[in-house]
């Protein structure tokens, strides 16, 4: 069946390939998705540390899913660990996102969906870059900065997102794509992370995400020393990395965990000065106070 005029047909033919994305679009969006998924897992974990409450079944499962995905893009071992972690923490996270489209942060609520914190977080990041005055709690306008960039420079390097970190590549890319056996929730103990399993999905962001997961698993195990070491490793390997903010928060949590309250407070004030609108800000502000230091 045809029934289209010649003009219409010609226009359709001319336009057919005009909507295809560039490689830059592909990697930029992929990085943003990985980020939204991964930070959802990390947010759940951070809250778990703060309150030590096992979550309700539904949202716990949700946490597990968000943790799991991060791992699709990263390493198997880390993945398995953080799934357990997400399951612990999911129920207590303190944010709700009503729908993927809306992404409005309600300050005190329950996580009803995967990646709740994440969606908001990414919006916040975008807003921070585009319009510095937008408050994190307001419904944020979609970021225009990235799109503008992509239109202006259609051929972008395959590096993820704005301000790709000056990175040393993750250590020892696996020669064989399957070095990681399906590990049964073995806690990651070595400070060095497992290299990403599948070469095509490897990116600096994946490596950062893996480190963040490791740091949070250390926090959940009340191992502040290890969390600090991982944060330091992140600072060394990814100066100016995309997840710097998360690692600064992690460091504050870890110092609280270790009872180094003064240092934690210093870190917290610095964090709040540099990232006043961060979704992590409330947790960082109350890092040592929210719960008795002994339970943190």
């Amino acid at each position, binding site marked *: 069946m045809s029934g289209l005029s010649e*003009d219409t047909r010609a226009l359709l033919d001319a336009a057919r390939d005009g*909507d295809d994305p560039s490689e830059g679009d592909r990697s930029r*969006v992929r990085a943003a998705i990985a980020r939204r*998924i991964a930070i959802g897992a990390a947010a759940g974990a951070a809250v778990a540390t703060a309150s030590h409450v096992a979550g309700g079944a539904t949202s716990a499962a*949700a946490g597990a899913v968000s*943790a*799991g995905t991060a791992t699709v893009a990263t390493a198997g071992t880390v993945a398995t660990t953080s799934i357990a972690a997400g399951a612990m923490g999911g129920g207590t996270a303190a944010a709700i996102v009503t729908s993927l489209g809306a992404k409005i942060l309600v300050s005190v609520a329950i996580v009803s969906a995967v990646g709740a914190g994440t969606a908001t977080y*990414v919006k916040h990041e975008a807003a921070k870059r585009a319009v510095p005055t937008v408050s994190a709690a307001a419904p944020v306008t979609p970021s225009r900065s990235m799109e*503008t960039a992509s239109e202006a420079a259609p051929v972008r390097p395959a590096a993820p997102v704005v301000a790709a970190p000056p990175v040393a590549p993750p250590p020892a890319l696996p020669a064989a794509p399957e070095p990681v056996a399906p590990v049964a929730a073995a806690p990651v103990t070595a400070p060095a992370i497992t290299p990403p399993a599948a070469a095509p999905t490897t990116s600096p962001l994946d490596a950062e995400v893996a480190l963040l997961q490791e740091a949070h698993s250390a926090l959940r195990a009340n191992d502040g020393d290890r969390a600090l070491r991982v944060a330091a490793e992140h600072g060394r390997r990814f100066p100016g990395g995309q997840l710097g903010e998360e690692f600064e928060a992690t460091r504050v949590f870890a110092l609280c965990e270790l009872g180094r309250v003064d240092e934690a407070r210093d870190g917290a004030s610095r964090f709040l000065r540099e990232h006043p609108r961060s979704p992590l800000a409330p947790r960082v502000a109350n890092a040592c106070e929210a719960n008795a230091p002994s339970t943190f």
Partner: protein
Amino acid sequence: MTGHSSDVPLGTAVATARSPVPPAARPRFEDVYGEHFAFVWRSVRRLGIDMSAVDDVVQDVFLVAHRRMDDFEARSSMKTWLFGIALRVVRDHRRTLRRKPAQLGGTAAVETDMDGVHDASARGPLEHVTEREAARTLHALLDELDDDKRAVLVLAELEQMTVPEIAEAVETNVNTVYSRLRAARRELDAAVARYRIREEQKQWRSR
């Protein structure tokens, strides 16, 4: 959007994806993204999302797909499933925009774009220098169709999907798809004709 599909944790997928025996019909998210990103991207554009919002909307489509991967198993085609998700996300996005009228979005910018695109050269109004220009013109004309007709037309004429596939993607029956498609073609033809006249007058005036 509740993560009900989360009953089966992705951990299962992670573990099984590495085992020699593949799990049931559970696709890996990375594979789905790799294979269908371009399709989702251009579909979102063609459903009327402009460049300022396409990143967000495409991200949302894949996040929903990721969360609901379990629902996919019974489906025959990943493409039609993803398109169904895209339709819903696009609709939600538009609804949000309508509540914020100050915001530039949807189709508001297109007319302006088009004015810049066509100089009054010797070219006819429907000859475009680049595919992107042609696509921009097409989007503006597709804006004249309602959402249902637009979706059907995009899948039939630009993605070359069959009518039964389209019926699955837009979750309706085959007869409805046929009638929407007939109407959509008629309306697009009319829109193209009007556009041509408009452009010819513009060129004539500028002489």
